[in-house]
């Protein structure tokens, strides 16, 4: 079990930079999510940690030891691939015992360990079967078995649930999280699915275009996104953006949005020019006397809640409200934004402005 530290790691493939100077720390025992759209560099980052790619520059520490240039076989880590990568010419037992055999472990010890792992994963009945005939879930379990059998310092998983169908995914996600809690091993998990990341992770790194956009606990990231990209990528539907020309001074707690005063958390940095107000759909409420108006253009019914799309003079706004509330299309309503939860972004750079709300979460200066 180990702490993993990534320091200024950079990876170039020819002229293409896959990862630009990333820095973050994964604490011992954490379930850590690397989240981002495809091509954002998350898998490359993971592969560098595992030793399948060598960083162009920067340092990677596992358990305090710099391993950036060491081959994978010397890092004492386990990797679970999206397509499982079970050795097709070996049966389940051989697949699971393979990492132990390479360490030269005695046969009795190997079979004891394999039996142990098979019991934990409930695949004892599969041990002597060839891997070819196994279902997706069973393959996934065998792949996990091969990873946990050697008790490595850390587990790296590259979209391990990506190849499973939706129904089974949910189940495996729970199983995986339970397994992690039981073993307490540092786990780094790559996914493009923000729901999966929030559901399973202790901490999340959000990456885009090879850059770490934000790093923190799921709720911190959801509530106080550091950039417009994060705000948009996380949450479904994503955060509403209202672009406007305006200004806010240090200590200011409101902005002028189309002549309407909107309260925001007290600003810790000021900015004038093109700004974006970010508001989560669940923080939009309907109040007849609210001065900011919108016209209902669509209603999506989702069971307990409904998503109402409103056109306003600053673009479409989605609101998540209780299904009990009656809404008619084309109706004109007043919109009330929950002042404590709003984020203000610099529209040019996409970066959030530090305020009373997010200063505790965002350390950037």
């Amino acid at each position, binding site marked *: 079990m180990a702490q993993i530290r990534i320091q200024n790691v950079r990876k170039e493939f020819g002229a293409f930079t896959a990862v630009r100077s990333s820095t973050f720390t994964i604490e011992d025992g954490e379930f850590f999510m690397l989240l981002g759209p495809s091509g954002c560099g998350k898998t490359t980052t993971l592969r560098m940690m*595992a*030793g*399948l790619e060598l960083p162009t520059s920067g340092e990677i520490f596992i358990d305090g030891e710099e391993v950036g240039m060491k*081959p*994978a*076989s010397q*890092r004492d*880590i*386990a*990797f679970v*691939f999206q*397509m499982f*990568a079970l*050795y*097709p*010419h070996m049966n389940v037992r051989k697949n699971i015992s*393979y*990492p132990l055999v*390479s*360490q030269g472990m005695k046969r009795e010890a190997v079979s004891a360990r394999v039996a142990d792992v098979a019991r934990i994963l409930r695949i004892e009945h599969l041990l002597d079967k060839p891997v070819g005939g196994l279902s997706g879930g069973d393959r996934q379990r065998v792949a996990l078995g*091969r990873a946990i059998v*050697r008790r490595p310092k850390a587990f790296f998983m590259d979209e391990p649930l990506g190849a499973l169908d939706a129904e089974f995914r949910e189940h495996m996600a729970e199983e995986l999280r339970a397994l992690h809690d039981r073993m307490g091993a540092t786990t780094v998990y790559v996914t493009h699915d923000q729901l999966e990341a929030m559901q399973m992770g202790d901490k999340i790194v959000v990456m885009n275009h090879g850059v770490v956009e934000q790093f923190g606990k799921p709720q911190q990231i959801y509530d106080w996104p550091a950039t417009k990209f994060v705000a948009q990528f996380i949450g479904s539907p994503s955060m509403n953006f209202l672009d406007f020309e305006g200004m806010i001074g240090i200590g200011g707690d409101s902005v002028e949005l189309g002549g309407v005063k909107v309260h925001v958390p007290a600003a810790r940095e000021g900015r004038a020019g093109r700004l974006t107000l970010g508001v989560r759909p669940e923080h939009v409420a309907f109040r007849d006397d609210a001065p900011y108006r919108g016209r209902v253009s669509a209603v999506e019914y989702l069971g307990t809640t409904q998503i109402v799309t409103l056109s306003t003079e600053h673009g479409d706004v989605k609101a998540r409200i209780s299904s009990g509330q009656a809404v008619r299309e084309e109706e004109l309503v007043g919109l009330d934004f929950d002042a404590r939860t709003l984020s203000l972004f610099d529209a040019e750079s996409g970066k959030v402005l530090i305020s009373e709300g997010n200063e505790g979460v965002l350390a950037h200066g």
Partner: protein
Amino acid sequence: MSSYSVTEPSLRQKWVAGILVVGYALITILPLIWIIATGFKTPSDAIAYPPKTFFTPTVEGYVNVFTTRTRLSQEQLQALGEPTTWYDKLVRKDGLVISGPSRFAERFTNSVIIGFGSTVLCIVLGTVAAYAFSRFKVPLKDDLLFFILSTRMMPPIAVAIPIFLMFRSLGLSDTHAGMILLYTAVNLSLSVWLLKGFIDEIPVEYEEAALIDGYTRFQAFYKVVLPQAATGIASTAIFCLIFAWNEYAFAVLLTSGNAQTAPPFIPTIIGVSGQDWPAVAAGATIFLVPVMVFTILLRKHLLRGITFGAVRK
């Protein structure tokens, strides 16, 4: 199941397909049957017209291909006394005695050494090269691969004279090593290209998994890639062996006394009275056996090998 199905052919379709396949098989196998039958005929049966479908089989041809014989006068024959072995007896009735073994066994052994030797070399070099082309960043990879392929774009015999001169000055003429090298050079492009295709199909994650499981790159190649490339290796080996085994032109040109293979030797089998067709046919039949056995042993792989990549698993 309904009376019409897209996947299951009807009985009539099966019959038509069956007749076509059997018919085609018969046509292709006919020369082979002809040769095998001729091997068991007497020289006069072999050249009889109309050809004899039914005849009394004899192993004379087989005895003749392995021996040289001398014609003796009646007195000399009587002086020799009774023949001691069954093959002595067989030739004695034609007024001949066996004067010694022919060089067929030796030529056949040459064929085995050169054929299998070049196949092994081709597979070893081909697998390693194909692996490198498939997995590593090789500068000018595409150009190199095209260059390798281009060695196949002319008939190999077009370079016979330069090779003949090179071999002569390098002392490789009429040596096993020379022929093995030559056949390897000719086959290597085929081997690299075929094997690269097979190795490309093996997901790189298998090796990465092995690397993480604590194996070195070579161990990963040896323990994980090779077993999965077995199919490709087997079918490539068959193609290489068949070429090296059957090659005639270079063998005629570059070998004579020492390293001559069976193909140029078999037609030179001349009987005491004219061309001994049964002996030639017997030689050809024996010559066919190793390739047939090799192919049958590997046929499971061959079938998968030829259709490999055509169907997504």
